[in-house]
Structures are given as structure tokens and as C-alpha cells.
């Protein structure tokens, strides 16, 4: 289908006079996300989303500024709130990265949900089994989380690269498959002995020694996530490995021509992204729940999409983006306690934010630039 694109290409933006059918790179979505350096758009999008949110809150009969204040206080100021927010931010950074890495190669990973879940259950189980080894057990748990997350990503990547199965479809399917499998595991083979009588679907509790704690109010998981975000940023920007990723994302044909093993890069991007999602799951098991239960995944995977788009596919920017989502999610309970607003308001707010950051129109309104018209997205459906 790529050959149909040349006709639809927008005219060149500068250079010598050329006819408008000059073909362009296929990297629409990516180019839009990366090339669109305007943080202004993001900020304006956030402001608009929060204003609409304010109107909704107002409509509930609550003073929106008070509501936002409560939310912020509950997420940042109150005793231990910041730690909890950071704790929530950690897996969000990772699921954000899980979407960002494949996105760099042109794949849209909406399967962080399942990848996280599989990483979490095996991470929790291994950390429990190896819990006697203390911190080593924790490390082992994290590694296993990465491995099992990656297994899901591997499947998606291989299906995409070698069988042409679109990753959006396969990740949706795998989300369901993994949910079924983990649920079966947690009421069957991996169910905690202590939970069997009560029937609670959960694994055995991870021993104290193998849990991830907080150091000076900063959760270990958060530190890990931040380091990994920085590593991803450095790898993508500074290494030959990252160059291969970016090249495949920017122009697949040119990458092939340049000798980049595209299929391998596609698989690797899914592998790496899914591994990070799996790690997020393991961190949640080791650091917050201290075991696996199906609820561990929550909406982490899908929040990752919002975060990746907010971050414009920039690994470092996933940190503030995840922090924002973490604030909203942490502050929600206090918001209900103080004002009675149902916590689902946060889902609405996130939907608004996602909408605002992803409509190209916003950038167009802001800058009246033609560049935004080029922001046509191509997720190469069906390829």
C-alpha cells in the first residue's frame, strides 16, 4: 500500500521549486510526535483539558478550584502522598516507555496491559520462591518480569515482522489471552497456599527481604523507572542501536537499503517495550502489592498510551507525563473523600487530555502553520 502514498503527499515545505507529488517519508505519526517540538501545544492541551474538567466538576456542584486543590494536596502535599504518587508514577513511566519504544519503530503497542500482567505474575512468583535470597530474589523477580513481558512482545513482534499481523490486533488479542491465562494461573497452579481455602485469586506473599522499599521517601521502583527512561533516551539518541530504531521508524525502505535488519528491529522494539511493561508489573508486585493479584494491572497499560502521546514519543518526557497521571490517580481518592466527586472523573480527565494532545487541529490553531497539515498519521493498518 505504500505506493499509494506518493499521490497523497503534501508539497515540499521549502527548497527549490518542485512539483507537489514529491514523496515523503511514511513516518507521519512519528514525525508529528517528534518533529513537533512545541511543548506549547502540550501545555495548551493540558490547560484546555483541565478547563473542560473544571466545567464538569462545576456541574457536579463543586468548586473546581477547590477540587483541583484537594487533588493536588492529596497527591503531593499530604503526609506520604508524594511517595505514593511516585510509587504510582514508576510503573506508568515504564508502560509509557513500553508504548514509546515500539512507536519509534512505527508500531503502536496497545498491549502493555497484558505484557505487564504476565510480567507481574511470574515476577511475583519467582520473587516469592527466591525470596530467601533477599535482595537477589527481588532482582531475580524483576528479571523474570522483564523476560515474561518480553515473551508477549516477542510474539507480537514476530507475528508482525514475519507474518504481517498488525500489532494493534495482536496486542488486543493478547491482552485477552494473557488475562485468561494469568487468571487461570492465579486460581490454579500459582495460587498462594494460604489463599486456596478462602479462594482469593492471589499468589503467595513475597517475603519482606525480597520486597522493594522506599529510600528516603523515594520508592526504589521509581528510581529504577527514571534510570531506565534516561537509558532509553540515551540509547535512542546516542547509540547505533537507537539509530537503527529511529531509521526503521523514519523510513523503513531506507533502513532496509542501509542494511538495517528491519524485522529484527521490529521484534526488538516490541521485545524491549514489552519487557519494560513486564518490569512494571514485577515492580508493582515487589514494591506495592507484594504479591500478584489480577487487579495489579489496573489501567496502567492504557495510561501508558496517554503518557507516550503526551511525551511525544520522547523517553525522557515520559517521566513528567507519568508524574501527571500519577498525581491524578493518587489524588482521586482524596477528591472523593473531600468533595464526593466520583473518582471516575480522573478517567474523564485523562480522556480529555489524550484527546487534546492528539488532535493535530490544536497545533494548527495555535500556530496556523502548514506543518500541521503534514501531521497525517500512518499507523500502517493492515500491514
Amino acid at each position, binding site marked *: 500500500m505504500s505506493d499509494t502514498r506518493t499521490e*497523497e503527499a503534501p508539497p515540499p515545505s521549502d527548497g527549490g521549486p518542485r512539483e507537489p507529488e514529491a514523496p515523503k517519508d511514511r513516518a507521519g505519526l512519528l514525525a508529528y510526535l517528534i518533529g513537533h517540538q512545541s511543548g506549547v501545544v502540550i501545555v495548551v492541551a493540558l490547560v484546555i483539558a483541565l478547563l473542560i474538567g473544571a466545567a464538569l466538576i462545576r456541574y457536579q456542584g463543586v468548586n473546581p478550584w477547590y477540587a483541583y486543590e484537594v487533588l493536588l494536596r492529596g497527591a503531593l502535599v499530604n503526609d506520604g502522598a508524594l511517595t505514593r504518587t511516585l510509587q504510582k508514577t514508576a510503573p506508568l513511566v515504564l508502560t509509557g516507555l513500553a508504548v514509546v519504544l515500539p512507536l519509534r519503530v512505527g508500531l*503502536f503497542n*496497545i498491549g502493555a496491559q497484558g505484557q505487564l500482567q504476565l510480567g507481574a505474575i511470574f515476577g511475583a512468583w519467582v520473587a516469592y520462591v527466591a525470596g530467601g535470597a533477599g535482595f537477589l530474589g527481588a532482582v531475580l523477580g524483576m528479571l523474570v518480569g522483564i523476560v515474561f513481558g518480553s515473551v508477549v512482545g516477542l510474539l507480537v513482534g514476530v507475528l508482525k515482522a514475519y507474518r504481517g499481523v498488525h500489532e494493534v490486533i495482536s496486542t*488486543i488479542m493478547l491482552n485477552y489471552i494473557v488475562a485468561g491465562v494469568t487468571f*487461570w494461573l492465579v486460581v490454579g497452579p500459582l495460587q498462594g497456599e494460604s489463599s486456596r481455602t478462602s479462594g482469593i485469586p492471589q499468589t503467595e506473599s513475597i517475603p519482606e527481604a525480597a520486597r522493594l522499599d522506599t529510600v528516603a521517601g523515594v520508592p526504589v521502583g521509581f528510581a529504577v523507572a527514571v534510570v531506565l527512561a534516561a537509558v532509553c533516551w540515551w540509547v535512542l539518541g546516542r547509540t547505533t542501536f537507537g539509530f537503527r530504531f529511529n531509521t526503521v521508524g523514519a523510513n523503513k525502505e531506507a533502513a532496509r537499503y542501509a542494511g538495517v535488519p528491519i524485522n529484527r528491529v521490529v521484534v526488538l522494539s516490541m521485545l524491549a517495550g514489552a519487557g519494560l511493561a513486564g518490569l512494571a508489573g514485577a515492580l508493582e508486585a515487589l514494591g506495592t502489592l507484594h504479591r500478584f493479584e489480577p487487579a495489579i494491572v489496573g489501567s496502567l497499560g492504557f495510561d501508558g*498510551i496517554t503518557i507516550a502521546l503526551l511525551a511525544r514519543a520522547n523517553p525522557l518526557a515520559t517521566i513528567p507525563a507519568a508524574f501527571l497521571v500519577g498525581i491524578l490517580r493518587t489524588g482521586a481518592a482524596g477528591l472523593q473523600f473531600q468533595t464526593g466527586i466520583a473518582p471516575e472523573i480522573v478517567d474523564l480527565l485523562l480522556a480529555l487530555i489524550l484527546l487534546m494532545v*492528539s488532535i493535530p487541529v490544536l497545533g494548527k490553531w495555535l500556530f496556523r502553520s502548514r506543518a500541521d497539515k503534514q501531521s497525517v498519521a500512518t499507523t500502517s493498518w493492515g500491514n
Partner: protein
Amino acid sequence: MERLSTWASKNRTPLVIAAAVLVAAYAFNLVRGDIAPSMFGAAWGYAIPLVLAALVGVIGERSGVVNIGIEGQMLLAAFAGFFVAAVSGSMIVGVLAGIGTGLVAGGFLAVTAVRWRMDQIIAGVVLNIIATGLTSFYLVSGQSLPGVIPNVSVPLLSQIPLLGEVFFSGRSVIALIAILAAVLVHLALFHSRWGLRTRAVGEYPSAADTAGIKVERLRMVNVTLAGSLAGLAGVYLSMDASSTFEREMTAGRGFLALAIMIMGAWRPLRAFSMALFFGFVNATASQLQQTGGFSIPPQLTATLPYVATLVVLAVAAGRVRPPGAVGQPYVKKDQ
């Protein structure tokens, strides 16, 4: 006559498969007349919303627009249909509100993905998240429907053994509409002016453009109108198949519909068959569970349709070909 034989030779594989399936079905009915009709009935019951939702996907993708927001469209419509009916006290008003909501949701996708050229997949994701947020935030409990959607039996057709019993006897109006819709969309897509243009727009929009077809407008109209089918599917869920609205009660059916669309090779009637197939898988799984003696954990049998989709996609790669321009916004030359 000649035309019939050309048609038959062109569609030999599907015809052979269809005949084989029919024979198998009647054979099964002969052997296990006690459970066969009910299993087929259950399969069709399971398939009804999936058929409607898959048609939404087919129309969208045939026009070149990916719609992964079907889930959200259905959810919004189920919500609107149920609550409008409950509040207004009229089923028909509720149904219309549901369909209208489906249209609005389709319109949202049309505007964002087609007019504004937002990434189509992201537009769908946004629609789903908004639908989830809105319906769970504004859900009010303790409402009930003022009535039921009538069941009807089609004269003559319902007399056909097995098939009539399954499809045309004592089924709700919406179930009949689903059959009709599949047939109509098929005919329209392949034998009408609209269909020719729609397929052109989805395959090779610039060709359509130079032939004087307004690509963007046709896409917007199609995506919006397809929303009415999603609306009907939603209405079916909350007002017919059940009589309640619950948070996220669509339960992933919108995504399953996408799988069905793909496995149906973007063709309405094949999608219809695939929906039935999944319905039958589901009915078989629960029948096995029910009669016992077969102990696959239900959690695993539930993943079967998804596994099947992956396997089919992996094996049939290259043979199932999506419309050429799907996922790509159409940008005219001077924009």
C-alpha cells in the same frame, strides 16, 4: 444462468465451505437434536451484536478508516438507549436515542480521524476512553426499562427446519435487522454505486478523487452512518439481550468484532459467518462445561476466539488483504 455459474466458480471455496458447514450442522442436529438447536441458537445470540459491530468495522475500513472505537460507540449507545428509555418511559425513544448516540460517536470519529486527520487508531482509543469515562461517571443505578423489544417470527422462513428455528423464530427485531444489515451491506458494497465509490475511496482515494468523488465527504458520511449500526449493537446489549446497563458491559465485543472483520476478510457475509463461528465456539465451550466430563479451565476456553484469530492471521498472512488505503488520511494535492 451463465452469470450464476460464473458467480459460483468465482466463489467456489466459500460455497463449498458453506455447504460443508450446513451439512455438518444438519448432521449434528440429526444426532443430537436435543441440544443442537439450542447451541446454534446460543451461537447466533452471541453473534448478533458482533455482526452489527463487525459491519461497522467493514464499512469503516472499506472506506479507508480504521475504527477501533466500536467498543466505545457501543458502550455509549447502550448507555444512552437504556437511560433514555428508562427516563422517557418509551422503548422506541430509547432505541432511537441509542442509534442516535451511535451516529454521534461515529461523527466524532469522522471529524477527528477524517476531517482533522488525527491518527485513526488514536482517535478510536480516545473514543473508547471517553466512552468508558462518561458512562461510568454518569451512571445512575436503580433504573429499569419500561418494556421489552418484541420478538417476532418470520412467516415461512421460520418453518425451515433448524435454520428457521435458529434465525427466524422468536428472535428479536434487532436480530432480524442484523441479518438484513449483513445482506444489505454486502449487496450495497458490491453491487451499488455507493459501494463502488466506497471501495474506491478505501482502496485508492486519489483515483476516486480524480474521478470526481469527494473522498473526505464520503468517508465522513460512511463512518458516521456506520455508527448507527454500532448504536443498534449497543442498544441490543442493554435493551434486548439484557435489560440493564452496567459499566463496560460491552465486555470487549467491539474488539472481538474487529477480529471478526479481519477473519471475514472485510466482507460482510463472511464476517457474519465468522461471528457465528465464534458464537458456536462459545456455545460449545459452555456446553462442555455444562455437561461436564471435559475439564479445560473455563478461563482458558474463553481465550479461544482470540487465540484462533491470532492463529488464523498468522497462518493466512498475505491472503487476508485489507483495503489499500486503510488507516491513511487522504490529503488532497494542494493542501
